[in-house]
């Protein structure tokens, strides 16, 4: 077996009040083709999700994937990815989380954990290095607790404080479609993996094991770890270390790319945002800096004990017309405690606020309101919260009429904090991303914020290639799994990634092979969606972005974006309709997909 890996995964089947766990061998070619993380996750999802499975059905898998670098001591690698079919989008979902739970999972001696089935009662799943010792135990007393409270309860039951717990909050219990899975104060956020865990009646997962993966060249790994630890203290990460991503808020407001009031504007008064900046929040509530396990950057800035990063700050702040530090911090705290994705929570609330303003809803909800009580309603599905728990797309459809025009999502996933009308490469990246409106699997915003790129105009020639490049780059980082905040440190990302894999696994990776693995992963995610019924109409932005120019100027030309989407498909080797052909699968080494459980359209092409 290649170093850094175990060559097997743990398959956990839940039924009634019992668990059956077993090791399943992984073909070594899989590790070579997909590396780990989101790549391995896409592969296992394809293998384990029955075609057309409903995301919250017992047969739908919930997958935790690790990586060869996890546990090597390389900075920022204490991460795992959670992969499932999203209950929010009905398409692929992968989200990353970090810290001690990731390191604990590696000690199980497997490269991934695949959980299928459903329990009869709310339970706690204890996973053990020896599959025969995996257990479930009913946990009625934990219902209604936050993930943090569950962790404390678990720690209280055990002599060792070194217990690794991932749990869902109230939102996951209530199957809110954007519920998170939380561990060590971190959250696997987007896409609703917490609802999938809840659908299996799993309140918590704990880990027990002592396995250790060997690496091919321990001295070389240690030398690389030292080198990157040192580089991680340089200027490339200075923003994350000193201020965190929350520093974006005032800069983005100044660049007129900060979405405000459900993407109705980008203009805010400097005085308003000032109170929400890292400096403003620190003055208001005090500041401490924390870190994921094994990270030398430490970007985790907390204000009054509440973690704050740009996306949370944008979504629960200006997007909802909120500019008061106390309201913002209370809303962020509520999401963390209840287990909700902050972007989808803010996006759905902002959409509902606009509906109320327009008289489409008669709820007493207005821009600028205190959000915490509404967030609790969402998590508990109480009153109007039940409709918002389904996300902005479902809420818009239930309202009908004009509402879907300004429900700001792609494929059901609410937009992150980048105004696409003023960032036209980002507009394409958001439209085509397999996970839905997504800044983390695309990173096209980096292209828009580069010198020489006129982000206000669509660039039909270069824009699609930029999206392909940033998607591949993100897929590489998310497969290894390296924190995105280390990316500025990598001068030659693919070559350096290959070097890390060589010394860890002992396999002769090179930069080209790593890039090919990233592109394969992007295509497999798209193929999964295709298999589940995706068509090109899903790769679009909401009408607002085509029909309503920003007051400061900037709108998306529908025909041009469609042309860019087509060009993007061609660069990826897809047809005009965005379909992946069997021939393209073979080119990418995805031969096993051809003839397997494909959607009807794909099978027809093969004939």
């Amino acid at each position: 077996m290649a170093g850094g890996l175990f060559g097997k995964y743990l398959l956990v089947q839940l039924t009634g009040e019992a668990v059956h766990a077993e090791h399943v061998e992984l073909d070594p070619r899989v590790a070579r083709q997909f590396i780990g993380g989101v790549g391995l996750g896409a592969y296992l999802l394809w293998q384990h999700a029955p075609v057309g499975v409903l995301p919250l059905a017992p047969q739908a898998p919930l997958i935790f994937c690790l990586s060869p670098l996890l546990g090597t001591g390389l900075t920022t690698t204490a991460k795992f990815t959670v992969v499932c079919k999203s209950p929010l989008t009905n398409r692929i979902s992968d989200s990353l989380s970090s810290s001690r739970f990731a390191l604990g999972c590696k000690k199980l001696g497997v490269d991934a954990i695949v959980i299928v089935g459903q329990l009869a009662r709310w339970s706690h799943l204890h996973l053990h290095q020896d599959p025969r010792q995996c257990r479930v135990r009913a946990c009625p007393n934990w219902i209604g607790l936050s993930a943090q409270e569950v962790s404390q309860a678990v720690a209280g039951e055990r002599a060792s404080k070194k217990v690794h717990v991932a749990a869902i909050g109230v939102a996951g219990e209530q199957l809110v479609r954007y519920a998170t899975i939380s561990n060590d104060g971190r959250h696997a956020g987007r896409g609703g993996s917490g609802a999938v865990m809840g659908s299996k009646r799993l309140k918590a997962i704990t880990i027990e094991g002592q396995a250790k993966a060997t690496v091919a060249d321990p001295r070389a790994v240690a030398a690389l770890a030292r080198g990157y630890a040192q580089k991680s203290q340089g200027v490339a990460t200075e923003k994350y270390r000193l201020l965190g991503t929350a520093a974006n808020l005032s800069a983005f407001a100044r660049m007129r790319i900060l979405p405000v009031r459900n993407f109705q504007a980008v203009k805010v008064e400097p005085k308003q945002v000032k109170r929400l900046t890292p400096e403003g929040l620190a003055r208001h509530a005090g500041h401490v800096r924390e870190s994921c396990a094994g990270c030398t950057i430490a970007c985790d800035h907390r204000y009054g004990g509440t973690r704050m990063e740009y996306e949370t700050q944008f979504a629960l702040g200006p997007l909802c017309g909120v500019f008061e530090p106390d309201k913002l911090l209370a809303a962020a705290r509520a999401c963390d405690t209840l287990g909700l994705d902050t972007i989808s929570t803010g996006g759905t609330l902002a959409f509902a606020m606009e509906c109320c303003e327009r008289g489409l809803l008669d709820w007493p909800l207005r821009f600028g309101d205190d959000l915490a009580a509404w967030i609790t309603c969402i998590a508990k599905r109480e009153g109007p919260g039940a409709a918002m728990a389904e996300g902005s797309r479902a809420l818009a459809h239930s309202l009908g009429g004009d509402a879907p025009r300004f429900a700001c999502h792609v494929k059901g996933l609410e937009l992150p904090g980048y105004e696409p009308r003023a960032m036209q490469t980002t507009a394409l990246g958001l439209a085509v991303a397999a996970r839905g409106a997504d800044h983390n699997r695309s990173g096209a915003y980096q292209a828009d914020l580069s010198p020489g790129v006129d982000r206000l105009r669509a660039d039909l020639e270069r824009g699609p290639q930029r999206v392909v490049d940033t998607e591949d780059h993100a897929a590489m980082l998310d497969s290894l799994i390296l924190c995105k905040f280390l990316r500025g440190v990598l001068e030659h990302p693919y070559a350096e990634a290959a070097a890390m894999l060589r010394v860890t696994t002992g396999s002769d990776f090179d930069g080209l092979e790593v890039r090919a693995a990233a592109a394969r992963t992007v295509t497999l995610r798209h193929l999964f969606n295709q298999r589940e019924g995706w068509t090109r109409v899903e790769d679009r932005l909401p009408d607002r972005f085509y029909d309503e120019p920003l007051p400061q100027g900037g709108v998306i030309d529908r025909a041009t974006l469609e042309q860019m989407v087509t060009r993007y498909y061609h660069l990826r080797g897809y047809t005009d309709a965005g379909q992946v052909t069997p021939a393209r699968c073979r080119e990418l080494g995805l031969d096993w997909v051809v003839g397997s459980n494909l959607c009807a359209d794909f099978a027809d092409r093969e004939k």
Partner: protein
Amino acid sequence: MVIEKRPGLPAVWFLTMHSKTVRVEFYGVVRLRTNREHFDTTPGTLAEVLRAVQCAFPTLAPDYIREGRPAPHLLVSLDGGPATDDPTLPLVAGATVVLVSAQSGG
């Protein structure tokens, strides 16, 4: 051009004062390093303005400004518009330049 109205001062006076200079605004780490929100300097090309900034705030060199050019970790934008690194870009009186640490996202 930024036209600010300060209490007690006629807008015309303020506009005149401003229009003689180029305003450089600092955000993020650049603001931390300079410990200032903005800096006014004389009009010129982008390279000349950045040199003046570097001279006034040596802590920005070489990480953010090198020889009057933006280093890879600096994002320069004219009045918050698209990013530029064109050293010959003319910055006339009344122009505003925004300097931000370039690694964004998250």
